[in-house]
């Protein structure tokens, strides 16, 4: 019993201590002049899907939930956002070449249809980010059309 108490105490103390480890969160910028949605007349349902299911990690408009401020969860959140923005950042969409846009749109189709994205760990805590099969198809069809329009 005494050991259990001691263990819990150690656990609590370590959780408190790790809160002081610096963990720089990627900055939030809401006005992005090169943003995909801002610069293109996307269908309403597509913009909503992108915002709700992708933008937290793939744009500068991240909405940080309360638990993202608590270590060790915050470390995971920060890592995923960093990786996400590095791979694809919709806030910088228009600053890319057509070639890179085509690459990203092609990857979006694969990732969304293969259900790799949005990441399951993300949709656990963000129920509204979940995409149905039909929504996935809509998003993929849009990506295909958008890529095609760039090459007309």
């Amino acid at each position, binding site marked *: 019993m005494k050991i259990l108490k001691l263990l819990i105490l150690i656990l609590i103390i370590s959780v408190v201590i790790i809160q002081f480890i610096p963990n720089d969160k990627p900055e939030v910028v809401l006005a992005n002049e090169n943003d995909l949605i801002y610069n293109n007349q996307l269908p309403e349902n597509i913009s909503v899907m992108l915002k709700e299911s992708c933008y937290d990690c793939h744009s500068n408009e991240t909405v940080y939930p309360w638990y993202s401020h608590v270590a060790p969860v915050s470390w995971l959140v920060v890592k995923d956002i960093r990786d996400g923005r590095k791979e694809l950042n919709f806030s910088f969409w228009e600053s890319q*070449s*057509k*070639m*890179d846009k*085509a*690459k*990203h*749109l*092609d*990857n979006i189709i*694969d990732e969304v249809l*293969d259900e790799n994205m949005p990441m399951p760990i993300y949709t656990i805590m963000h129920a509204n980010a979940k995409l149905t099969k039909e929504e996935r198809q809509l998003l993929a069809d849009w990506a295909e059309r958008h*890529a*095609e329009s*760039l*090459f007309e």
Partner: protein
Amino acid sequence: MKKILIFMLTLVMGFMFVNFTIEDKKTPQDEVKSEAATYSVPDDVQKILDNSCVGCHNSDSKNIKGKGKLKFDEFADMKLHKQVGKLADIAEVVKEGDMPPSKFIKNYPDREPTAEEKEKLVKWANEMAKQLTPAE
């Protein structure tokens, strides 16, 4: 008269033949620089693709994921934006070392592309993608 005719005919055919040989000697880079660029693979790049990529990335492949992403035998039939998207992705995944996958290299160590081959592949994919992309 007949002799002259035959002589001239031979001359004309000779000219045509010479023209064809010149055509053939054009490097692929020269070919795609023309106005309507088309997907083309120089022999040295094709060798690398055959050795390290096509095994999974073809329509008869048993690797569902691999062929789902990319099938080289159907590449030329894809729409232009697809070709460019795939080429740009090829350049990225090879450069980052994500492809060929470590499992493939473990199973077929002799088919791992050398650093030089990777560089050649990335350069080709990037240049091809750029050439196929219409001006901004």
